[in-house]
């Protein structure tokens, strides 16, 4: 049982690492393509295509360059997390009411200030929704990590499948599902928390 706990923690860490790296790469990239819109179509197309590669194929291909182990898994998870993060950040920022931008400009905000004080806060709920999708997907894909010598809950799941032992499969699958649900729940809370006060649906207007 202690094993499963350790694997669960490792699984969560690996998934978070993949998503974390995708944030570091994806958010600046998304902001960049909101400024250079001609790049947007191309960038989206690339992240779309990456998403369609079967995960085992991507793991195996990356393994050839990055070797056996968690680093390959984390990079794979990052690649799968890029699409929801880039797309949601881009959509969130470009979907902002033009009036808000104009108001910001009218107040004399620089582009950086506008980004930091208007665009990102207003887009945050949409970005967070992307992170939620990315995190849950990553937790699922991370179960394949064992196949390229990585860690996580894939070990009991795959061993269980090989020896047709459902309790062993479940000992890996249930914690994976649980952390997915917990992450979904926690991130949803966070999403609410980061929604700017002014945007929260105020108590329904009484008619």
């Amino acid at each position, binding site marked *: 049982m202690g094993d499963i706990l350790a694997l669960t923690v490792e699984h969560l860490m690996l998934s978070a690492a993949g998503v974390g790296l995708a944030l570091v790469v994806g958010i600046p990239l998304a902001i960049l393509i909101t400024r250079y819109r001609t790049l947007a179509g191309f960038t989206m197309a690339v992240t779309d295509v990456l998403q369609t590669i079967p995960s085992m194929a991507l793991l195996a291909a990356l393994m050839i360059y990055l070797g056996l182990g968690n680093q390959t898994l984390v990079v794979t998870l990052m690649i799968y997390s890029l699409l929801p993060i880039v797309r949601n950040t881009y959509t969130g920022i470009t979907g902002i009411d033009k009036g808000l931008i104009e108001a910001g400009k009218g107040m004399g905000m620089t582009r950086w200030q506008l980004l930091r004080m208007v665009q990102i806060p207003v887009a945050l709920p949409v970005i967070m929704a992307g992170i939620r999708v990315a995190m849950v997907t990553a937790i699922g894909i991370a179960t394949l990590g064992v196949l390229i010598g990585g860690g996580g809950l894939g070990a009991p799941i795959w061993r269980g499948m090989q*020896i047709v032992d459902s309790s062993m499969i479940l000992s890996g699958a249930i914690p994976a599902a649980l952390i997915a649900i917990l992450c979904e729940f926690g991130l949803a809370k966070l999403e609410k928390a980061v929604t700017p006060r002014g945007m929260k649906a105020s108590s329904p207007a009484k008619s």
Partner: protein
Amino acid sequence: MRKRLRRFFSLLVIAGLLIGTVSGCGGDGADKITVGSKNFTENILLGEIMAQLIENKTDLKVERKLNLGGTLVAWEALKKGDLDLYPEYTGTALMAILKKEVMYDADEVYNLVQKEYNEQFQVKWLKPFGFNNTYATAVTREMAEKYNLVKTSDLKPYAKDLVFCAEQEFFNRDDGYDGFVKTYNLQFKDKRAVETALKYQAVAEGKVQVIDAFSTDGELVTYDMVILEDDKGFFPPYHGAPIIRMDTLEKYPELEEVLNLLAGQISDTEMQQLNYQVKEQKKDAAEVATKFLQDKGLI
């Protein structure tokens, strides 16, 4: 609120960087060798047997990577040096790795893969374990009796009503599905690709009727399946043997002698029994490996 958010993001990033660095500089400890295996019971068992034998007979530390996603992953990892050795099959090496035409003489195949691996990849084949884990076609005993099936050719009149099922790899190989149906001139009603472990369940539930099997599969006993004789000799030899990087052998020459203790020690039926214990009786692979080595007086 913003502080909380910032903390959350930095945690994610830190987790990412930490794992990146930790796994990046993963201990290059001296006198450690890495034993790999592919992700099926027999290969894992062989990996475990070799690992335990090395631990018992030498002072080397053994790291196990025993559940790698197929031939491609294990082989690329060995070439790259992430693995020092893993159990491979002569037929797999000949066709999947070297992309050679199929050959049927066991010694010829072994000698050829030995030569090619030595020259192309600086990898050495140690002595074979003994068993030949070749492909075979299997049906339930019930069906074999009903249609009086003994040889694979006997399937011909019934194939149009039968569904053939195998793992994906069988459909992708030259010595797999396409060549098989051509050689025997079979036209199945349908074909399905499933995960190896689900194949026997599918056939037991009657969802499919004919499957590919390995001659050492433990499930053949459990599910009461009959192997149909390969009367046209379509399936080539697949003798299992350890393959090891030559630079590892140079560094630890004792490994060759130690691993060759396993030469010829495992027959087809012995391998079937070992697989059966792990896969069907749910015994721990490491314990089964220890028991095997003790029974053979090797440790």
